């Protein structure tokens, strides 16, 4: 188990400074976003549709450039060591689970046989040993998502970006994956930025929640959750958890100016 330093003592790895993103010259998807990501953080970007949370993630991933402001990696090295999990599993259907997981290595020109052991190891971590030879279509939705997580973890990235990864799964699978994700995070000491529109998911998973509001997309508040990892059912049913969920809900409500109920409905 990798030791994660307490909040406030973690070295920073990435900074977003006054980042703006405007589409078509007029639509402000993100305005003046500041964020320092520290090693070991589990940050949730929580907000309704259109609040810029996915835009923030795409900016960090380098898939688009900010209109204004800066995104800098602490040691200068750009986002080389990124892992990404999308809302859909996004697997290559034409090849096996093991080869899907090996993709980040293959794109660096490393042959499959050289990474086979590492792939097996990560598949075991997500509970899919024995499934390396299966094709994605043979797996359930939750299992496909596990493969996607394994692919994001396989290179031991410095930062893992997750864009509403469990939104399309049923509630039971989702809770199981939430638990497993925390377990993995504790074991590997990974740094995660997790986009979600679920208050409960964000409170359960993260130690920092950024509440975001739409039109223009912006961060309105940060909530820190000190509860230690690993978190389990005890935490889910604790007074602490309920209080944090309440705080996050209220902050979200305030940010939305009361239109929360309408906006919170997942699309």
């Amino acid at each position, binding site marked *: 188990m990798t030791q994660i330093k307490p909040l406030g003592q973690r070295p920073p790895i990435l900074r977003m400074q006054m980042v703006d993103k405007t589409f078509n010259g007029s639509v402000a998807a993100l305005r003046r976003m500041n964020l320092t990501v520290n090693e070991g953080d589990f940050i949730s970007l929580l907000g309704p549709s259109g609040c810029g949370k996915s835009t923030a993630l795409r900016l960090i991933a380098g898939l688009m450039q900010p209109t204004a402001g800066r995104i800098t990696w602490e040691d200068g090295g750009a986002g080389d060591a990124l892992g990404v999990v999308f809302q859909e599993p*996004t697997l290559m259907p034409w090849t096996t689970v093991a080869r899907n997981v090996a993709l980040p290595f293959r794109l660096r020109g490393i042959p499959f046989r050289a990474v086979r052991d590492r792939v097996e190891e990560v598949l075991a971590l997500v509970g899919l040993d024995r499934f390396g030879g299966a*094709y994605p279509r043979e797996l359930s939705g939750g299992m496909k998502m596990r493969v996607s997580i394994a692919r994001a973890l396989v290179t031991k990235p410095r930062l893992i970006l997750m864009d509403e990864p469990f939104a399309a799964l049923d509630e039971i699978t989702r809770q199981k994956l939430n638990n497993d994700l925390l377990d993995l995070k504790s074991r590997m000491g990974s740094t995660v930025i997790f986009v979600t529109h679920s208050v409960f998911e964000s409170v359960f998973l993260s130690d920092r929640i950024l509440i975001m509001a739409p039109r223009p997309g912006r961060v309105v508040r940060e909530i820190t959750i000190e509860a230690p990892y690993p978190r389990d059912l005890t935490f889910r049913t604790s007074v602490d958890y309920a209080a944090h969920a309440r705080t996050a809900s209220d902050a979200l409500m305030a940010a939305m100016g009361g239109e929360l109920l309408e906006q919170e409905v997942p699309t």
Partner: protein
Amino acid sequence: MSTTETNTDIGRPADNNAPMIDADEARRARRVRIENVAQWVLPLIVLALTIWGWDRVVKVNNIPHYILPGPGRVMETLINDWGTLSGSLLVTLKITLMALTAAVVGGVGLAILFAQSRFAEMSFFPYAVILQVTPIISIAPLIFIYVDSKMVALLICAWVVAFFPILSSTTMGLKSADHNLTDLFTIYRASRWQRLIRLHLPSALPYFLSGLRIAGGLSLIGAVVAEYVAGTGGIGSGLAFRILEASYRLNIPRMFAGLLLIALTGVAIYGATSLISYLALRKWHESAVKRDG
């Protein structure tokens, strides 16, 4: 277990004497079995009846063979003339397969070029469409004038007809890669080449294969049409040439025999391309995967 008896059925295993398959399931299973057999047997029955009916019509009405030969006569011709016909079959088959190969190379090559450069696509795609929509039969005479080798001319005609479905379906396939996967390749800094080999070509495979199935049939059509235009005389005596020749001599049974061989060739090509498609996709693509239940 030695617990006290409860009055609930929950969790109790089903009665062992109860049938595993209920009447509904049994009916469904029977229907599936019957359909599986019928799929093969029914067309064969239709074939047998057609041949029998054909034979009766010819025999009963005493139709002379230079007007309508009976099926027996056609088979006889096929066997007696096998020496000539098989040679012609080989010629047609050779042109068809060469044209199909050229269509695959040209179609896929152009599609990759289009996928790499939007400007190349803008420049050339309209002309590919024009080539496709102009009936080959109207271009063929010109081709035969300008191209010396009859073989090459035939090949060009068959290629013109066959390459477009491969080009258009592969072009579409190359653009159909999953957007998130494309982003993932960007994040992992994939090179242009890696993108093509590991993402776009596999994504395009099902599209290409469906284009191939159409092109297989079209290359035969192209080869036959071009032969008709080329007409008799000279070398390159394929099946279409034999049919033309037989028609001048009022050798109707031989015309039927030639027609039969062309039809069978078409069926064989379709079967072969379908098989290739199935083998390539059976592991992962919905179109080729058998559903259970």
